[in-house]
């Protein structure tokens, strides 16, 4: 009996830990919600609600090394845009990515990139406002 209580108590500790982890500031629903808001207003028209993009024109945001890879490169694309076209998984995408550095602030860019890196099947590390700030020239 004592053993059972010990196991249950142990589980409670694990659960408490998970509850805290799930609500910790860096991964909070608030960040995702803020990121989703920016995504809907700014990114969705081209990259679509499900992040699937538009074949031949606007790159998908799923299964993309640009999204899940090196944060600095990704942050740079949002700040400075991309007008050279891009190739992802053997497919060319020709539309221009507008520079959004003057439209979005550091927090908005951090939140939207955290949202994108944890949506559409992506699982990559959060991006902080400090990281965004460091990429501004």
């Amino acid at each position, binding site marked *: 009996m004592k053993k059972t209580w010990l196991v*249950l108590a142990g*589980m*409670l500790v*694990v*659960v408490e830990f*998970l*509850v805290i*982890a*799930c*609500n910790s500031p860096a*991964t*909070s*629903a608030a960040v*995702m*919600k803020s990121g*989703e808001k920016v995504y*809907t*207003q*700014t990114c*969705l*028209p*081209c990259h*679509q*609600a*499900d*992040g*699937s*993009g*538009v*074949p*031949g*024109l*606007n790159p*998908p945001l*799923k299964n993309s090394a640009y999204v899940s890879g090196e944060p600095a490169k990704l942050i740079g694309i949002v700040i400075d845009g991309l*007008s*050279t*076209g891009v190739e992802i998984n053997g*497919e*060319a995408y*020709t*539309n*221009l990515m*507008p*520079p*959004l550095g*003057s*439209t979005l602030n550091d927090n908005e860019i951090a939140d939207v990139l*955290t*949202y994108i*890196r*944890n*949506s*559409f*099947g*992506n*699982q*990559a*590390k*959060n991006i902080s406002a400090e990281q965004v700030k460091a990429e501004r020239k």
Partner: protein
Amino acid sequence: MYKKCNAFLFLLPVLLCAVYIAGCHSSDSGKPGSADTATARHDSLKLPDGFKAVIFADSIGKARHLAVTNKGDIYVKLASLKEGKGIVYLHDSDGDGIADERSSFGNYGGTGMFIRDSFLYASSNEAVYRYRLNENGKVQQTDRPDTIIKGLIDRHEHNSKSIVLDHKGNIYVNIGAYSNACQATDRVKGSAGQQPCPILDSAAGIWQFKTNLVNQGYNNGSRYATGFRNVVGLDWNEQDDQLFVMQHGRDQLFQLFPQFYTAQQGAELPAETMYAINKGDNGGWPYIYYDHLKKQKILAPEYGGDGNKTARGKAIDPVMAFPGHMAPDGLLFYTGTMFPEKYRNGAFVAFHGSWNRAPEKQKGYFVAFVPFKNGKPSGQWEIFADNFAGEEIIQAPGDAAHRPCGLAQGPDGALYVSDDNKGTIYRIVYAGK
């Protein structure tokens, strides 16, 4: 990293799970998107009574425009290379309406494809090439085309070069604007429209060149018509002896000017427009757009418009207007006799399907028909061939199984439609009485 807490549920007793779910429930609002739904589930096309479609060829690559020889063979231009080649030849040797021979050549991707007399014309995104056809309508010297036009501007956006010929030795080439609305910074909210728009000198119009000269550049050709943002579908109307084009209207009225447009207006406006072109005509881009609901030319918001101010100036009116963003990629005037009287000399328009109606649902993904009488539209447009997408509701282009792009007419009067998503070539025939 955003926590995927649900995976741990299996490890915990039911009671504790309840606590856990209560703790983490709110984080579900940022749930990852659903998996890719563009799976094969295409049903047959929906067509008017008496018509039927067969799949002439499948999986040939990103099939853009296509042309049919007088023997009924088909040449298709691919947007990008498939197995290193950019033009596909299709032949139906037993006459059952399905291609049974296939070969390919050409080391460039592109869109344009046109046949006149004994030549095949094909375009890359910066040049136009010409191949001689032999007496059987076949290209023999596949590796030695004449380069008739070169050095056309290709800045990625709107870079496809559609082509059509008249009967006087001229070829017309669309050069699309490398911009949405000629803002100082393309597609950025608050960036003003450039006045005058510097893009118009070398793009956003239709250029005319000679069919029988080689290595022509901008200095050899002439700007036949200007102020057309991006034309992909174009054709020569034989009754009018005149060029007709389909313009892709500008994007993002709502996203760039939410003070003037609702999301729904941004999805519906501006119109996709059909123009009958004379030399020197101006379509008005980027200064104006056409509102098919108001039936007026409206001043673009980048140039002082507010969604209501009508446009001054000399821009021509379209001869037909369609709902916004459906992306007219193919135009064909039907000159055959296989189809019923109603269709003769009328226009088929292949709508590739929208993406910029988001967050509203998408539209297009069909072939429309516009009846013509004496070279002018004689009634409203209607959907002719539908269900390319294989889905009723399209939220994103990735949901569509097939996307119509090019149109061509066979010597027997059959209508061919290309699909640049799965590489399907449809042959549509009339079998009714």
